[in-house]
C-alpha cells in the first residue's frame, strides 16, 4: 500500500457522477407498479390509542393498502403511544399526494396521558437507573485527597440527525415471498437481519442494497420508513417507496440522546490528572436504538489511573434516540481541564500535553494504548496555530482554545461479539484484464469506497478504473460478521481487500494460461487488531474565536487541526471527511436546537452550519506508513470543536460555558447578561 501516492490524489471515480446529481439513490429509483407510502404519526408524546377510524381513508380512490397495528407489528402503535411521532398507521397509494390525503382522513382517538419530563435540567436531581459503568482504580478515594479538585456540570442536548440525503426506502417483492430493500445503511447485512427478524422471515428472504451510508451513523438500525416500505410491499405485493419529510427525518431519523454530565476531576499540584468521576445522565426516549451509548463512549484522550464513568438512563416520551457517543464526555473532561489550568496558572496546552495518552498507557476502556501520536497532534496543531504568540496577541473579545480526541480504529470494542466482528471481500480477475471487488461495506475507509478499489488496483498493478466495485449488497457480496458495521466494517474491508489482492497476485503467478478465471476471498478480523496494544486514531484542534459580548454572537475566526489517520489512502476523500467532521463540530458547538414539533421544523428551519460560520481553516494529517492500514477519520474532529470553542470563549469573555451548542442567548446567559 506504500506505492499508492500518485493515484490516490485523484478524485474518486464516481465523483463526477455524484457532482452532476447523476448517482442514483432510493428516491431516484422507479419500478413498474410503484406505490407511494406514508405514515400517520402521533401528535402526542404519551397517549392511549382508543381507536382508529380508517373508513374514509380506505374509501379514497387510489389507496392500495392501509395498515394498523395488528398488520404491521414492530412498526405501529399497539394501544399506547409511548413517544412523540410514534407511527399510528401506514398507507400505500398510487401517488404520494393520495397517501398523504389518506393519512389526513384517518381519525385517531387519542386520550392524552402525562408525559415524562424530558429537559436535561430535570434529570439533574432525579434518581435514575444505572447504565454501563467504566471503572479503573479508586476514583472517589483519590479525588478526596487530590491536591486540586474541580467540578462542574455540563450539558449537550439532543440534536436531530442530519441526513444529507433524505432516508428514502424502497421495497419490492422478491421470489419466494421475500423482498428487496433499497436504502441507506452502514451495514446492509445487519439491516437485512434486523428486517428479516422484524418481519418474521428467514434472512435469506430479505436482500438489502445500501445506496450510501447515513452520515455519522455507525450503527445499523431499522428506520420506520424501511420497516413501513417492507410491510406495505408484503401487504400489496407491489413495490412501495417511503420518502420522509424533513420534519419526519428530524423526529424519527435517529436523533442523538441528550446528556447532562456531572463531572469532578482531581489533579496533582504539578497538573497530573489523578482521578476523574463522570456521571452522565442520558435522556433516551423510550430506549436507545442499536449501538448502545454510541461511538467511542468513554474513550478518553488522557492518562487517568482512577476513573469512574457511570451512565444513567432516563426514559422519556421523546422519539427513540441513538447513543450520544463521546461528545458530551469530552466537553465535560476538557472543561475540567480548563478549570484546572486556570486554578494551577498553567497554559491549557501544557496541561493537555502533560496528561495526553502515550503508547503503553492504560486506556479508559481498559487495554493498553498502542501506537498513539496524540502529543504530536497537539504539538502540530499548536505550531500551525502559532499557539503561544497568538494567545499573547489576541485582541479583547478574542480567545484561543485547544482540544484533542482519540478514536478506536478496527479492534474489538467493549461488549462486542468477537465471533461476529469480521469482514470478508471477494476479488475476481476478469477475462478482459480487469478485476471485480465485491464487498458488504457501504462506506470506505477515510470516507470513500473508492479507496477499496485503489487498494486492489495497487496490489494487482491495475489502473483503479479497471476495478469494478460491487458494494453494499447483502446478496451479492460475501457475508461478513453482523457486528462489523460502519467505519469498523470499512477498515476491516480495506484490510481484507489488501489480503485478497496479495492472494490473487500469487494465484495469478501460478495460474495456467487456459485455466478458469481466478477469484479469492479476503478476510480480516477485529480480534487480530486487538492483539496486543490498541491502535488509536488521534486528533487535536486549535480554534480562535471572537465574542461580541453585547449580542452574544460568536465567530470562529480560525481553526487548525492535526489528525493521525494511519495510512492515507485517498487524501481528497480524507479532506472531504475532515470537512464533514468540522461541519458537524460547528453544529455541535454553534448550531441551534430546534423543537421536535411545530411548524418551524422544516429543512429550512434546521440550522445547519455553513462555511459562512467559519473563518480560515486548515487541517494537517500525520501519515503513519507502519500503521495497520488506513484509519477512519470519522467524527473525532467534530468532538474537539465544542470544548475548544468553550475554552476560547472562556478566554474571550472570562467565563467557561458549560453547555453546547452555544446560541447567542446561551452566551449572554453564561456572561450573566441575559435572564430567562
Amino acid at each position, binding site marked *: 500500500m506504500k506505492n499508492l501516492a500518485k493515484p490516490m490524489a485523484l478524485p474518486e471515480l464516481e465523483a463526477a457522477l455524484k457532482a452532476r446529481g447523476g448517482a442514483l439513490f432510493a428516491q431516484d429509483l422507479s419500478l413498474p407498479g410503484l406505490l407511494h407510502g406514508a405514515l400517520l404519526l402521533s401528535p402526542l408524546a404519551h397517549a392511549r390509542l382508543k381507536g382508529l377510524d380508517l373508513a374514509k381513508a380506505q374509501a379514497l380512490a387510489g389507496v392500495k393498502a392501509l395498515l394498523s397495528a395488528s398488520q404491521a407489528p414492530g412498526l405501529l402503535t399497539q394501544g399506547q403511544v409511548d413517544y412523540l411521532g410514534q407511527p399510528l398507521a401506514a398507507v400505500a397509494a398510487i401517488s*404520494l399526494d393520495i397517501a398523504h390525503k389518506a393519512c389526513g382522513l384517518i381519525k385517531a382517538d387519542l386520550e392524552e396521558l402525562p408525559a415524562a419530563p424530558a429537559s436535561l435540567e430535570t434529570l439533574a436531581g432525579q434518581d435514575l437507573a444505572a447504565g454501563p459503568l467504566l471503572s479503573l482504580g479508586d476514583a472517589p478515594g483519590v479525588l478526596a485527597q487530590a491536591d486540586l479538585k474541580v467540578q462542574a456540570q455540563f450539558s449537550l442536548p439532543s440534536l436531530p440527525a442530519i441526513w444529507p440525503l433524505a432516508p428514502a426506502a424502497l421495497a419490492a417483492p422478491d421470489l419466494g415471498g421475500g423482498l428487496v430493500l433499497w436504502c441507506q445503511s452502514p451495514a446492509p447485512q445487519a439491516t437485512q437481519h434486523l428486517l428479516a427478524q422484524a418481519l418474521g422471515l428467514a434472512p435469506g428472504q430479505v436482500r438489502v442494497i445500501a445506496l450510501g451510508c447515513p452520515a455519522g451513523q455507525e450503527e445499523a438500525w431499522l428506520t420506520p420508513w424501511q420497516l413501513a416500505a417492507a410491510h406495505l410491499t408484503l401487504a400489496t405485493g407491489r413495490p412501495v417507496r417511503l420518502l420522509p419529510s*424533513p420534519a419526519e427525518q428530524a423526529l424519527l431519523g435517529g436523533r442523538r440522546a441528550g446528556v447532562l454530565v456531572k463531572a469532578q476531576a482531581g489533579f496533582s499540584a504539578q497538573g497530573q490528572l489523578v482521578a476523574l468521576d463522570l456521571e452522565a445522565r442520558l435522556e433516551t426516549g423510550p430506549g436507545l436504538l442499536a449501538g448502545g451509548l454510541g461511538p467511542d463512549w468513554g474513550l478518553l484522550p488522557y492518562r487517568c489511573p482512577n476513573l469512574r464513568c457511570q451512565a444513567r438512563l432516563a426514559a422519556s416520551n421523546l422519539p427513540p434516540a441513538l447513543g450520544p457517543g463521546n461528545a458530551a464526555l469530552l466537553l465535560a473532561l476538557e472543561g475540567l481541564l480548563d478549570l484546572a489550568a486556570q486554578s494551577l496558572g498553567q497554559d491549557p496546552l501544557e496541561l493537555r500535553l502533560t496528561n495526553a495518552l502515550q503508547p503503553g498507557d492504560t486506556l479508559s476502556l481498559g487495554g493498553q494504548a498502542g501506537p498513539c501520536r496524540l502529543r504530536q497532534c497537539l504539538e502540530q496543531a499548536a505550531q500551525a496555530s502559532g499557539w503561544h504568540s497568538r494567545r499573547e496577541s489576541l485582541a479583547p473579545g478574542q480567545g484561543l482554545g485547544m482540544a484533542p480526541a482519540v478514536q478506536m480504529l478496527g479492534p474489538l470494542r467493549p461488549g462486542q461479539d468477537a465471533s461476529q466482528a469480521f469482514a470478508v471481500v471477494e476479488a475476481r480477475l476478469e477475462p478482459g484484464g480487469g478485476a471485480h471487488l465485491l464487498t458488504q461495506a457501504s462506506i470506505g475507509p477515510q470516507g470513500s469506497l473508492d479507496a477499496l478499489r485503489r487498494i486492489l488496483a495497487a496490489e494487482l498493478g491495475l489502473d483503479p478504473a479497471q476495478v469494478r466495485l460491487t458494494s453494499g449488497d447483502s446478496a451479492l457480496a460475501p457475508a461478513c460478521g453482523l457486528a462489523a458495521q460502519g467505519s469498523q466494517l470499512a477498515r476491516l474491508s480495506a484490510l481484507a481487500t489488501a489480503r485478497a489482492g496479495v492472494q490473487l497476485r500469487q494465484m495469478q503467478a501460478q495460474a495456467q494460461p487456459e485455466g478458469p478465471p481466478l477469484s479469492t476471498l479476503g478476510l480480516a478480523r477485529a480480534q487480530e487488531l486487538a492483539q496486543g496494544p490498541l491502535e488509536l486514531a488521534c486528533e487535536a484542534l486549535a480554534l480562535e474565536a471572537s465574542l461580541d459580548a453585547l449580542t*452574544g454572537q460568536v465567530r470562529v475566526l480560525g481553526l487548525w487541526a492535526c489528525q493521525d489517520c494511519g495510512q492515507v489512502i485517498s487524501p481528497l476523500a480524507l479532506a472531504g471527511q475532515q470537512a464533514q467532521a468540522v461541519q458537524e463540530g460547528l453544529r455541535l458547538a454553534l448550531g441551534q436546537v430546534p423543537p421536535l414539533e411545530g411548524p418551524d421544523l*422544516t429543512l429550512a428551519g434546521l*440550522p445547519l452550519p455553513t462555511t*459562512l460560520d467559519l473563518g480560515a481553516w486548515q487541517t494537517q494529517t500525520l501519515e503513519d506508513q507502519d500503521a495497520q492500514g488506513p484509519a477512519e477519520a470519522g467524527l473525532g474532529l467534530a468532538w474537539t470543536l465544542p470544548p475548544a470553542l468553550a475554552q476560547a470563549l472562556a478566554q474571550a469573555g472570562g467565563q467557561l460555558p458549560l453547555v453546547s451548542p452555544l446560541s*447567542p442567548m446561551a452566551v449572554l446567559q453564561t456572561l450573566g447578561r441575559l435572564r430567562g
Partner: protein
Amino acid sequence: MAHPRFMVHQPANLEEMLDLLGRHRTSVKVLAGGTDLLPRLRAGEPAVDHLVSVNRVAGLNRINYMDEDGLVLGAGARLSDVARHPEVRRHYPALAQACAALATPQVRNAATVAGNLAGADPAADTAPPLMAYRGTVVLVERGGRRQVKLEQFFQGPGQSVLEPMEVLEAIRVPAQPARSGSAFLRVSPQGPAGRAVASVAGFLALDLGGRMMGVRLALGGVAPTPLRCPEAEALLEGNEPHPELLGRAAAACVRAARPADDWRASANYRRAMVQVLAKRVLEQCLAQAQGGAQ
C-alpha cells in the same frame, strides 16, 4: 412530502404577465427568485398549478439610479446585483448591507428584493433599510398602477396590501440628501446565513449646524411587521448628536418593538438586541454623515 407539480410561464412583457395571471387566477403565483416560494410549495403549502415568472419580463430586472429621482429596482433585481451595484453602495449603503448580509451567496444570486418584500415576512432583511429610506412599492394590475409606502404595505406576518392579481412591479427609493448616513445591522443565532431575530436600519442627515435631520429608524423581526420607531426618531430630530442621546433613542426603539418568544430567540433577547443594534446603527449613521460633512 408531496412533490409539487406546476407549469412555469415565462412572459416577455408585463402585459403578457398580467394576462397569464388573469387566465389562471384560481391557481397561480408570481415567481421571482423562488428561494422562498419553492420551499414553501415543497413543504406542502396549498398547491398551485401555474407559476408566472418575472425573470424574462422586459424591464423588470433593472436597477436604475438618477440623482434627481433616486433609485428604481425592478421586480427581478437580484439581491447580489443590488448589493454590488456601485450607485446603491454609494447612496444607499444600508440597503447594500442588507442585500449582502441576507442568507447565502447562492440564495442572494437567485433571490430578489421584490420577492423578499412580497412575502411580507416580519424578518425580511430588505424592509428596514427601504423603510428608513422612505421607499415605496409600485403595484400593478390590469386596472392600473398604484404606489404604496412600505410602512403601509405590510399588514401582518405573510400579509400585505398586495391583491391576488397584483404584481409588485418595482421599488422606488427617493434620492438621499448630502451629509447623510445610513446603516443596517442584524443578528441571527443561526450564524450569518440564518434568519434574523432582530434587525435595525437607520438614516439621518446633518444640517449645517450639525443637528440631526430626517432621522428614520426601522426594525425587523421584532413585531408582526417591519416597523418604524417614531418615538426614537422624534428624540433625535433637530438635536445635536451626543452619545447619551443616541443611547436614549436606542432605548426608545425597544419600546416600539413587540417581539414574540419562539425557538430561535426569546422576546427578552430580541428586545436586548434592538437596543444594542440601534445604538450601533446610529453611531455608524453619524460617522458616515460627519465624514460626508468633512
